[in-house]
């Protein structure tokens, strides 16, 4: 027996709401790191979820929902905003959570990290945030960014290499990679 349209609508809505509850925070935070502006990030997330709602039937496997949403978000960002504005560098202070348990030096450390992440070139920041916020593997990041796996891994090691040079400038084991160094996956 087939379900009634009303029941289908209700199930679709429940599925969508479960998706929102599970993923809206990660999607917002990734959106924020893409555009570094809270108002733009919120608009992006709303557009993303609206598109997700409209095409929810095309999502066959809920386990793939996060990668699906992140991909929609990236497309929406490219469509709506990316070409219209320059890259913002500064992080909005009010966007950083002020956790009660953090001591002042920890809060300062977090602000310095925000600045350092924000100053990474977009090509490096993007895969790093997909790995850190999304928890995606190199292969999954490659699919989302439509790059090959070696390129993703190269960008990831360069991103962390840059952060490491900021926070460990005097380390004995320096990460003296050149821009020509790439990640050649061992077969």
């Amino acid at each position: 027996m087939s379900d009634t349209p009303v029941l289908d609508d209700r199930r679709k809505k429940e599925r969508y709401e479960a998706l929102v509850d599970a993923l809206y925070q990660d999607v917002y935070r990734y959106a924020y790191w893409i555009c570094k502006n809270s108002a733009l990030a919120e608009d992006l997330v709303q557009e993303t979820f609206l598109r997700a709602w409209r095409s929810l039937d095309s999502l066959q496997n809920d386990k793939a929902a996060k990668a699906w949403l992140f991909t929609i978000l990236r497309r929406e960002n490219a469509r709506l905003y990316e070409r219209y504005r320059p890259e913002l560098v500064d992080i909005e202070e009010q966007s950083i959570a002020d956790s009660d348990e953090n001591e002042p030096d920890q809060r300062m450390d977090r602000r310095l990290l925000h600045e350092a992440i924000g100053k990474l070139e977009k090509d490096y920041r993007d895969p790093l945030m997909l790995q850190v916020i999304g928890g995606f593997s190199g292969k999954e990041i490659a699919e989302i960014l439509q790059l090959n796996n070696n390129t993703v891994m190269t960008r990831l090691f360069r991103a962390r290499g840059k952060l490491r040079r900021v926070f460990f400038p005097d380390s004995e084991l320096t990460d003296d990679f050149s821009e020509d160094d790439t990640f050649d996956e061992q077969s």
Partner: protein
Amino acid sequence: MEDFEFRKRGLANPNDSSEDFIAAAQASAERTQWLQDLQALDARVHAAALSIVVPAGLAARLKSQADPATTTASVTPLPVRSRYQRYYAMAASLVITLGVIMSSGLWTARPSAADIKFHDDIIGHMYRETPRIDNATADLSMEEINQVIEAAGGHLREDERIKSAHIKFANDCNVVPSIKGAHIVLEGTKGSVSVIMIHNSPVSTEFDVNDPRFQGKIIPFGQGNLVILGEKEESLESYETLITETFEWVI
């Protein structure tokens, strides 16, 4: 594994759990220390990336988009501000940010992440309850109202202002799953005015709700919280005064 290869793989994924990488990390004390430092930095990067404050009420706003009527692609998309409006908005945001920084004491008055979660739960509850609230027409007695409020650990004192108010809805609420709260609704001049009482940890500061439809406040009140919400056009000050002067916790 050569040192250069080891460091590249470590930087690409400090938590690489493949056997050859772990063996390479254990090949020397220097490498082990390098990887531990990198993993510690990565944990800080992770915490920093996740410390971005998610706007209050966002989940409820996203859920409110889920209208079966918007399934088809022919529906008008959400309005998107023009690039110029965005630049103005960003400039205004910068001015406001500077104002916040310059104002003394406001940094410590910001709601915490837990407060924002509570706010989001309240807004979600409001959207779920709105159909019932809008259809409510009863004129409840003080006894009926206090039966609900007392189950949540509170009491509303009899007062001429309360007696003359039209309270059309009183029900327990489960905004905080483990704590029974009370939700009463008064008839306002522009629609329903909700008052929610919950005997949970008081929010760190009184703050306004942030929602496209509702306005109101979350107020730390004794050993719990009072929430007063109404439509955007409603003047809520008199309701806030009325409730804060007549409500008390009794547990």
